[in-house]
């Protein structure tokens, strides 16, 4: 099915299943420990051996020698593979350094060896016996020092990433009120709870990977490139994924090394990347430096807006572009966007939840708060005053598909009790605590990508959906079941969903907030095709028949779905060019209340609210979870998360869950989420957009603004930790 015009009225507008809060259909398995994750699949293949990866102890240089004699002779050891004895593997999608092989070291903790043994303890013990000598080279590790010399990044068309509208310089010079501030965000780690893990097994020239991967089809194609083999001979299976957040978008060392080790050991091999290797071996969110310049009239209308962004990566490409929301979020006639990127020898930077926008809002939305204060204007009113008209500023040909940001701000203001906020910082005291409120707007693009599925009838009234779509905690299982139940008119419990198997039709996968919108549209399209096939089988027009309650009404007759027998169709959705005329986005207003101890400076979030505009909400229960979870991650980015770079040796120092601090239960006392009742006919037939990344865009800025409102101390270097503001705290009175 091609989606090539805005969705009209369709069956989802009278939905009975879609749009209703629905407990996850995978819930009973997940809560009882019965959902099998990659490393746990004892039953899929016999004789599994244990692999243990060794990471490089230098960040840049060459391995001069490796001695695995003792490891190979150690008890239980079946095989040892060494980088120095292995030709570098090919590069799959978004692999910037080879995942294994060769003597060159590109980054710290790059995989250089794997020991395969009968038991985990034996593999770990033998891995410690491998002795490696290195010739270390100097590396480019100090991003803030290198940033000023960094060139402009290349945009999608290969042109320097610099956009202008009007004449920023003149307008900024002439502006009545100006903000010129620079913000920094640190490197961050996905730190998903399930480590990257794979069981690899060869059957002749066929390779099966039971793995943990967000993008099954990308992974299959990439493995083909990496190992120089036909992807047809590769199967990936990821029915349950213990978190990804972008860190499992691409094939990583666990899968590659398990495949190589299984070949050498002539046994299936299972590997989980050790937690202390994850931060440096895999990808991370890149640090940024962002300069915001905003000029406005006394009336608060923005006349000049510049957002410049610097980041760095190992390949001098694919940085963290904090400017992404800035062309879209506010009006203003004169604009400048520029994105620079340095080349570094740190581990590989890549996508983490809302790449670009997540950190971009931490700069833009604090700059807006600073502007509001300078204008003496309420920060909500400032945002409303700069709401663009119906098209993207500077692009009159690009319409907003369905945009309700102002409603989000107004609704949030009422619900949060914004009228109780005191504009003057440091003026609300609650016992020992200084209390402040902050607000921020949020924008995240809402892409939708080609997505396919197979839908079968089991002949007994049951429906089976099979697709390589993944559920990384997002709730895909349930919204796909809801979509099939709605379209085929069966109760939810009659639908079985099988996900994550590359033998099934390729879905859009989980990334970029496109998964829910794309995969449900694909399942809808396949179900429509199945309805037609049912019609052909039973002698009616499937498009005109009414499917409800497990029955079909057509031509004045009633049929049981079971009468169609066993049927199977492959179908899917593709998205037409008409979408290029629109900016399809999701919007939010985020609010936070933070208390800072007047004596100790300890900062505690008290409550948070997100009001979201994302079209139809397919499953309000799990959509809310996506948003509260994103708010938690944003709280981490604002207040605690930072991969600390050792600029002498070029690695992330705090590379485990003790050193890399993420929010815990006690950090998040109260959250609320409101979804506006909106529909976006441009996104898909279901008119539903993703929310999982919207939820992280703006929350951190709302927290930062609340901390400023509480204390009067503005910190522009994230995370906002005590050391950065304590000395500037107001004197106690």
């Amino acid at each position, binding site marked *: 099915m091609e989606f090539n015009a805005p969705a009209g009225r369709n069956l989802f507008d009278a939905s009975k299943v879609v749009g209703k809060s629905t407990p996850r259909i995978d819930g009973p398995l997940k809560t009882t420990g019965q959902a099998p994750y990659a490393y746990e699949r004892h039953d899929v293949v016999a004789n599994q051996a244990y692999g243990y990866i060794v990471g490089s102890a230098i960040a840049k240089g060459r391995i001069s020698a490796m001695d695995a004699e003792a490891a190979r002779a150690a008890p239980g050891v079946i095989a040892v593979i060494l980088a120095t004895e292995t030709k570098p593997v090919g590069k799959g999608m978004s692999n910037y350094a080879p995942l294994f092989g060769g003597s060159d070291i590109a980054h710290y903790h790059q995989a250089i060896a794997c020991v395969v043994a009968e038991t*985990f303890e034996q593999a770990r013990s033998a891995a410690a016996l491998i002795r490696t000598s290195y010739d270390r080279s100097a590396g480019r590790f100090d991003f803030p020092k290198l940033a000023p010399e960094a060139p402009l990044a290349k945009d999608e068309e290969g042109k320097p990433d610099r956009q202008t509208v009007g004449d920023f310089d003149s307008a900024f010079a002439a502006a009545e009120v100006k903000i010129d501030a620079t913000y920094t965000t640190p490197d961050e780690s996905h730190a998903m709870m399930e480590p990257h893990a794979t069981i690899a097994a060869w059957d002749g020239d066929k390779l099966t990977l039971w793995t943990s991967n967000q993008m099954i089809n990308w992974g299959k194609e990439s493995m083909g490139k990496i190992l120089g083999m036909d992807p047809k001979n590769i199967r990936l299976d990821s029915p349950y994924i213990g978190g990804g957040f972008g860190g499992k978008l691409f094939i990583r060392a666990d899968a590659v090394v398990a495949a190589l080790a299984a070949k050498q050991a002539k046994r299936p091999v299972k590997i989980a990347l050790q937690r202390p290797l994850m931060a440096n071996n895999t990808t991370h969110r890149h640090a940024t430096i962002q300069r915001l310049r905003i000029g406005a009239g006394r009336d608060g209308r923005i006349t000049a807006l510049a957002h410049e962004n610097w980041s760095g990566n190992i390949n001098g490409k694919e940085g963290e572009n904090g400017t992404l929301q800035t062309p879209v979020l506010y009006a203003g006639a004169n604009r400048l966007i520029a994105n620079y990127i340095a080349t570094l020898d740190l581990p590989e930077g890549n996508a983490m939840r809302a790449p670009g926008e997540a950190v971009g809002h931490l700069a833009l939305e604090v700059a807006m708060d600073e502007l509001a204060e300078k204008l003496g204007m309420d920060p909500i009113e400032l945002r409303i005053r700069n709401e663009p008209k119906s098209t993207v500023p500077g692009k009159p040909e690009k319409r907003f598909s369905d945009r309700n940001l102002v409603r989000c701000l107004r609704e949030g203001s009422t619900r949060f009790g914004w009228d109780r906020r005191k504009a003057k910082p440091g003026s609300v005291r609650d016992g020992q605590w200084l209390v402040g409120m902050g607000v921020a707007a949020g924008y995240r693009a809402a892409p939708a990508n080609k997505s396919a599925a197979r839908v079968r009838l089991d002949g007994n009234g049951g429906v089976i959906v099979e697709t390589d779509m993944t559920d990384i905690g997002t709730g895909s299982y349930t919204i796909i079941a809801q979509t099939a139940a709605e379209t085929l008119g069966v109760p939810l419990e009659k639908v079985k969903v099988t996900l994550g198997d590359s033998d099934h039709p390729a879905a859009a996968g989980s990334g970029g907030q496109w998964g829910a919108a794309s995969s449900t549209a694909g399942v809808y399209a396949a179900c429509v095709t199945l309805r037609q096939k049912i019609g052909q089988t039973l002698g009616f027009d499937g498009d005109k028949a009414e499917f409800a309650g497990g029955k079909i009404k057509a031509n004045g007759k009633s049929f049981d779905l079971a009468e169609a027998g066993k049927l199977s169709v492959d179908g899917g959705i593709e998205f037409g060019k008409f979408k290029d005329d629109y900016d399809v986005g999701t919007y939010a207003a985020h609010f936070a209340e933070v208390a800072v101890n007047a004596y100790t400076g300890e900062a505690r979030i008290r409550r948070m609210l997100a009001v979201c505009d994302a079209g139809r909400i397919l499953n309000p229960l799990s959509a809310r979870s996506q948003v509260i979870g994103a708010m938690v991650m944003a709280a981490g980015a604002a207040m605690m998360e930072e991969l600390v770079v050792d600029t002498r040796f070029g690695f992330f120092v705090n590379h485990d869950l003790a050193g890399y601090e993420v929010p815990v239960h006690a950090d998040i006392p109260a959250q609320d989420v409101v979804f506006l009742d909106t529909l976006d006919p441009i996104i898909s037939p279901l008119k539903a957009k993703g929310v999982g990344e919207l939820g992280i865009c703006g929350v951190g800025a709302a927290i930062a603004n609340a901390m400023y409102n509480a204390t009067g101390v503005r910190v522009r270097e994230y995370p906002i930790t005590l050391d950065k503001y304590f000395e500037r705290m107001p004197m106690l009175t």
Partner: protein
Amino acid sequence: MADNVKTGPSRRTVIAAGAVSAAATSIPAYAKPAQLPGKPPMRVPVSLEVNGQAKKLELDTRTTLLDALREHLKLTGTKKGCDHGQCGACTVLVNGERINSCLSLAVQHQGDKVTTIEGLGTPDKLHAMQSAFIKHDGYQCGYCTPGQICSAVAVLDEIRAGIPSHVQLDVSEPPPLSNMEFRERMSGNICRCGAYSNIAAAMADVAGGGA
């Protein structure tokens, strides 16, 4: 840092014929045989009661309780998130108290009664806390979930037993079954998906006798 430095294990010539037979066949021809580091793994019998069933195992002394459950008893509901006691995903109940099963060796648990997520309930017969997690969507990816549920069950018991916490205003009083008590006591169980608010709601539901 190990750059430009070559260090080796102390070379000992301890050979234990029985334990190396599997390895010996896979030693490449160029490797020098028979120079084995350290002693072969020591295996000891371990008796546990897991989810009400007696289990007798023969385990490497280095095997953690977590790996005894996951790799030997194939009870993979208990998760390995960090293997270093930093995340709580491996939480199980041992003699009624919660512990990080990655932080203790199986041999330390001779005769202990271990309850894992599989022992709390099954999809057909859910524990009240499991039902409450489903109802309140107290999870997303599901990987930390068994640990969260085991911890949540233990936390309610700890509060009822009067065990004090950091957030209690008066430690001489019985601790309340409150939101902040739950959040404080659950803070050793990281959920990167950020389901904390829903987990607290699930706990409140169970504590109030609902779910």
